[in-house]
Each structure stands twice: as structure tokens, then as C-alpha cells.
């Protein structure tokens, strides 16, 4: 590889990328996991009535349910359940 200005710049950019990855990569997982747990909680609150947990705001969680349907599906798949765990509510 010839030592040209372009090569040096490319090498430098690669170093910057590696350094930035070195800085961030180990921590992404931690934060992503925390976010996912927070989101799961929110999603379960929306579907709480269906889980048998009485909720004063059922009327309002109802209108949020269609939006959260996808997340519910992702959640049960992630939790290792092939299908929705709720007998009354089958999403797939």
C-alpha cells in the first residue's frame, strides 16, 4: 500500500471508526437492554386488562393497543412463546 495522502486519510478514518466502536460497542447492549425492559413494561401496561389486571383506564389503553400490537407480538416471541400466551388474545 503506497503512502499517499488519501491512504493516510483512509487509515485515519478507519482508526477513528475502530476507536469509536471500542468506546461505544460494549455499552450499547446494556442501554438497549434497559430500554427494551422499559418498553416491555409500557406495552404490558397497555395490555394489562387482557392479562386480567383491572385498570381504570381501560378505555384509553384500548385505543393504544393497535399501535402496540406489533410490540406485543415481538415480546412474546422474544420470551420464547411461539404464540400469544393469552388464551383470549391471539395475535398470530
Amino acid at each position, binding site marked *: 500500500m503506497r503512502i499517499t495522502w488519501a491512504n493516510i486519510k483512509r487509515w485515519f478514518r478507519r482508526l477513528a471508526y*475502530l476507536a*469509536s466502536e471500542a*468506546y461505544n*460497542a460494549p*455499552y*450499547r*447492549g446494556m442501554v*438497549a437492554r434497559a430500554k*427494551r425492559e422499559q418498553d416491555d413494561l409500557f406495552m404490558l401496561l397497555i395490555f394489562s386488562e387482557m392479562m386480567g389486571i383491572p385498570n381504570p383506564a381501560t378505555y384509553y389503553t384500548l385505543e393504544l393497543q393497535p399501535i402496540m400490537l406489533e410490540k406485543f407480538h415481538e415480546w412474546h416471541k422474544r420470551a420464547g412463546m411461539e404464540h400469544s400466551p393469552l388464551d383470549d388474545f391471539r395475535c398470530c
Partner: protein
Amino acid sequence: MTAIVPALIGMVLIAVGYFVYSKFIAEKIYQLDPNFETPAHSMRDDVDFTPTNRVVLWGHHFTSVAGAAPIIGPAIAVIWGWLPAFIWVIGGTIFFAGVHDFGAIWASVRNQGRSIGSLTGDVVSLRARTLFMIVIFFLLMMVNAVFAVSISNAFVATPSSVIPSWSAIAVAVVIGVLIYKMKVPLLWPTVVGVIMLYSVMYLGELFPVELPQTFMGLGAAPQWIIILFAYATIASMLPVWLLLQPRDYINGIQLIIGLGLLFGAVFIANPTIVAPMYNTVVPEGTPPLLPLLFVTIACGALSGFHGLVASGTTSKQLNKETDARFVGYLGSSGEGLLALVTIIAVSAGFASLGEWQTVYAQFGGTIGISTFVAGGSQIVSDGLPLSQAFAATLLAVMAILFAATTMDTGVRLQRFIIQEWGTIYKIPALQNGYIATFLAVGACLALAFGAGGADGQGGMLIWPLFGTTNQLLAGLTLLVISVMLVKLRRRYIFTLVPMVFVTTMSFLAAIYQLWDLFNGGSYMLMTLDVVVIILAIFVILESTSAFSREKKAAAAS
């Protein structure tokens, strides 16, 4: 003999190990497939499972495992002469650690990224899995305690390291804030941070800090121990971007600079090795080389701890299966280099055999980071235009920060484990973060003072026990890998031999220490040792039964 000889031989052998032996293992034994879809791809969720550049992974693996242990262990072990330590470090790195770290990643990758602990349950037995968890908890406790003792001894021995080490926290915080809050791209904070760090080392020289000899009935070292645990508690509760993340980064940079300076200085200064090749006049009370050498040096030759890191996060981020060789084997090779340079530092960094013998007048004790610093700084100042005082501060700060990071992570991990027990055994109090942290730190403090007495000086007695437990873990991991190989009808001798060797040595070491600790009156450590022995017996029994079971199954089908 000039130090360049072992340095060169060691480096060449490790290189050969990577290019020849690891290639052999990769192709013939583990049979890595570049087209195999790793869990990072097949189970990708960008949370735990996400493919990562192999250089970055290697860097992370290397900086996680290359801590203070490859410094402390060899520093102590040279008391038997530098050659035994050298052989164990080089041989262990090539044939044991390489295969272990490498294999742990491979085993995990081939099993949906599951950790070795969880695989032990499948491959061996559920009982073995519980064993694994218990061993890990004890290991963490011992790591925290022994590192706290090491750091405080280093602070006492090198007062110029106090200010720079603590300032490093401020430097890290500054970097963290610059990058996260002010969104400055990485380059400038890095440069600024590094300059700040090394500048403060000059300050440290000018303003050495010594704690009062006695304060509230405690000597200087015990005071440091308490301060360190207080720090670890607070640090484990701060947001990651503020302290942990930038500090890991600085440590990585320091490691590269430190290794470069040391090896460079060795080749320039060409120091003479004064330590005996094989010490025939070991001081009174030194345990026998066999088996204790093999548990005194764990990291740098073979360490079970790495298997946790390897199968914990690394395997879930591996892009191609063939990267496992680069990340795992080369990762432990890097650590071997650090151990090698430590051996050289403590063998050649002293003016004469007499001086060396004064330092190595007893086994353990205050030998550790400070010995590395003393010897290393001599070589560095001989070879490079740096004052010995500055070199000493630099090396001390490096080792101290490595150990401190491990302590933070250790306390954090212990807190998680305690919280998990709270969930499994339904004890709400344990699930609270503060209580769990308090318990974790309390256990470590109890161990640090219980082992060392009120003056904390005897804390290094924990070291061989730590090594023993560490090797037991390595043995379990190698067992899992071996059983997997049996199932796949491949040659398992390359993992089985290390496994048998290390388990036997740990067991013998544990038995010896039992007698030794009993005589010395360290009853707390003795109890711990008994626990370790029981664990060791279980491991041996479980291993034998699992292994023969699998062999029969493989032969039958």
C-alpha cells in the same frame, strides 16, 4: 543472561503459537466454518446479539482480561526463579489459555450464544451448573478483596501514584461529559484525556500522598482498602457514560502505551537478568513450586475468568465463526505478553541478585504491583529518556487503574447475582440495588480484613486461593468443550490434557493450602479453602462421570 533473550523467545513462541497451533486447532479440532451463521446474525436483536468488528471485539476482550492479574501473579511467582514462571506463562498461553478462551467462544457460538454456565447444565449436569454459579460468586468476592489489598499496598509503596490514580477518575468524567453531553467527536477528548492523564503523573511525583500511619486504629493500607470499596460502591451506581465507559477506554490506551514502553525499553536498555533461573534458596515459608506455581499465575497462563467474558458477551457479538481464533486466541496471547514483560521487569529490573533477594525475602506479602513498578521503572528509565520516578508513577497508575476497573465490574456483577438470587428465591430485600451492593461490598470487606487481619497486610494470602478457584472454573469450561468434542467425534486430547492438568493442580494446591492456612491460623481463609476443595471434588466427580457417559454414548451410536 540478557533480558532480551527470554523476551524475544517468548514473543516468537507466542507468535508461532498463534500462526501454527491456533490454526491447527481452528481447522482440525474446532473446525471453524466461515459460513456458519453466528448467533450475532441468527438471533440478532441489536441488544445483546449484534455483529461487531473483530478488531473491536479483540480489543474489548483483551482489555477486559488483561488486568492487574497478569502483573501480580508473575510478580509473586518469580520467587521460584524466572524460568519456571516463564515456561508456565509461555506454555500456558500457547497450549492452555489459547485453547480455553478460543474454545469458550466457539462452544458458546455453536450453542445460540449461551454462556458457559448455562451450557454446563446441559452438557454436564444441573448440579455442575449450580457449582458454576457458586464458584463465580466466590471468585468475584476474592477478586475484589485481593485487588483492593493490592491497590492499597501499591498506594502505600508508591505515594506518587495517589493523585494521578484518583485524578484519572476526573479525567474519565471529563471525557465522558465531552463525548456524551457535548457530543464532541472521539478524537479530541481522547487526545485531551491522554495528555491530562500523563501530565497529572508529573504532579503526582511532586505531591506524593501518604495516609496517616494510624487512624482510628487502622494502618495506612487498611484505610485505603475502605476508601477503595467506598469508591467501588459509588462508581457502580453512576451512569455508565459518565465514568465506566471513558475509563475502560483510557485503560485500553494505557495498556497499549505501557506494553510499548516496557518492551521498547527492554530492547533498548538490554538489562541483565539478576533473578536466578531456578531458585534453590527459596525463603522460609515459601510453598512448593509444584503445585503452587500453577495457581499463582492464572491470568497470563490460563484463567477461567476469561471464559465468562468470552461466552458472556463476546460470543454474542462474533461476526464470523473464524473470528473466534483472532479474538480468543490472540486475546489471551496479548495477556501472555503482559505476563512475560512482568517476569522480565521483576527479574531484570534490579541491580543485583542481592537486591533481588532482599525484595523477594518472603512469599507474597507486599510483593505485587509495587514490585512490578520498582523493576519496570528501572528498565524503562534505563532504556528511555524518562526519570525513574515518572516511570514508576506511570506503571503504578496503569496497574492500579486496571485493578480498580476490575473491582468496579466485580462489585457490579456481584450486585446482579445477589439481585438474581433475590428474584429466584423470592427475597424482596435482595432485589433492592442498594442492599445488594451493600451486601456485596460487605462480603468483600469481610474477606479482605478477615484474611489479612486488622492491618490488612495478610490480604495477599487470598491470591493463591483466588488462583485455585479461577483454575477450577477453567477446568469446568475445558470440560464442557471436551464433552462437546466427544459428542462431535473429534479429538479431544488438546482440551482434555489442559483440563486434567489444571484441575489436578488446583486440587493439590487447595489441599496444600488447607494445611498451610491451618498452621498459619487463618481460619477464615481455611474455611473458604474447604469450600473450594469440596467444589473441586465435585468438579472432578462430575467431570469423570459426564465424560465417561458421553464416551459411551458416542461409542454406542
